């Protein structure tokens, strides 16, 4: 295993598990992983059992997060195993990685398998002061991969010893904000990815690299699903793994370089658009566009 001089700051879910699964399959071991356990139930936003002793509460909160955030990949693989597994193998082939990378999506998250140093922190959102305290204890010049979404508070980003890297599913500065994959399909007819050093704005940090990605193969069974299910499938299996593939390519291309200070350039903030979540009607339209653009999955063709 190659030791990777990178700290991963993650919430459990398909996004984090795709990065971690792909890095492990590709022979990388992170220097450090920090699992943020949400003190609030991600579904109800209510505090998880505040009456429990701290250790038991932490355990329960981690379990709740696992069940909530990894529900759809597990459920879909259970319901649609017959075509889903060949499709995931097709996706792996199309983007050049081992299909085993998907195993972590449904399996047990064992941090010791993934990183030299592991830590779990029970936090109440990204603004929790515990996170800033954690960042202040990192060694100097620590690059941190942030796998979550949304805005990271300026207080955390301004901790001098670390620099946060994020992979965004859209070519910056053209496509910022939420649902980047779908907006990219509507506006550019293909997925795009960007890696950047985060700043307090929404996807406005210094760009390290951007890349257009190939369209994913899609089986006929996927195309037969209703729009809401297709959307969840994309966010369970495609969007997270595209980000992970892009990160892996970046790591391979910058091997031996200091991830704290990769060549990067400032964005033209006046250029580009910031998008919000796509309305379900437009989403359906974007999924139709994806259908029109994509080639059928070879596995689906042979099954037919």
């Amino acid at each position, binding site marked *: 295993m190659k030791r990777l001089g990178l700290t991963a700051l993650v919430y459990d879910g398909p996004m984090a598990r795709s990065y971690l699964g792909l890095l492990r399959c590709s022979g990388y071991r992170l220097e450090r992983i920090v699992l943020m356990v949400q003190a609030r139930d991600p579904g109800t936003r209510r505090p998880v059992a505040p009456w429990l002793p701290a250790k038991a509460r932490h355990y329960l909160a981690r379990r709740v997060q696992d069940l909530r955030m990894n529900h759809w990949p597990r459920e879909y693989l259970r319901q649609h195993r017959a075509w889903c597994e060949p499709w995931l193998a097709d996706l792996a082939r199309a983007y050049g990685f081992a299909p085993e990378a998907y195993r972590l999506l449904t399996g047990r998250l064992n941090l010791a398998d993934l990183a030299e140093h592991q830590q779990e922190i029970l936090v109440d959102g990204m603004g929790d002061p515990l996170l800033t305290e954690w960042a202040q204890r990192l060694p100097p010049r620590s690059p941190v991969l942030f796998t979550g979404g949304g805005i990271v508070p300026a207080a955390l980003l301004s901790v001098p010893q670390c620099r946060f890297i994020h992979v965004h599913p859209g070519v910056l500065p053209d496509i910022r904000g939420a649902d980047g994959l779908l907006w990219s399909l509507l506006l550019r007819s293909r997925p795009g990815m960007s890696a950047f050093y985060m700043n307090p704005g929404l996807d406005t940090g210094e760009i390290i690299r951007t890349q257009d990605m190939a369209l994913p193969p899609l089986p006929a069974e996927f195309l037969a699903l209703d729009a809401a299910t297709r959307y969840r499938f994309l966010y369970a299996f495609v969007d997270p793994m595209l980000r992970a593939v892009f990160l892996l390519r970046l790591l391979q291309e910058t091997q031996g370089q200091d991830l704290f200070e990769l060549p990067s350039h400032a964005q033209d903030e006046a250029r580009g658009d910031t998008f919000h979540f796509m309305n379900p009607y*437009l989403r359906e339209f974007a999924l139709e566009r994806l259908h029109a653009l994509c080639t059928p999955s070879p596995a689906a063709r042979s099954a037919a």
Partner: protein
Amino acid sequence: MDSHLRTALQGQLSHQLRQSASAVEHDIAGLLAEGGLPDGASRQLRYQRKIDITHRIAAAYDGVVGRPLTEQSISGDGYLALALVFMRSAGEASQPAAARLRWINSAFNCLDQIDAQRRDDRVLDQYAALQALMRSAVT
């Protein structure tokens, strides 16, 4: 056909909003009448941000459309009119594709806020007409 429909809807909704007690609905009526508000473009952007992020438009805001001054939301007429304002911007030929899609997305977000239980026949008709306009704009 689309422009006739749009003009008819605009006339009806302007008339309805003029009778409203909500300051925001008067604002929206001003946006409907192009050039009816001195700082119309920036107010329209603020309303777009509100509907996209909070998924509601309050019946009253502070002067810069920042803080809501009431828990009450605007009426179905207000949402229909705001969707029409957004669709008009989406139809401007000078707008780049990204901006057009953002306006259309916000217009759909407005329609989603019209409470299905409270749609009378008139609102239902206007809703259907506007939805048809929006669908043809997307395709």
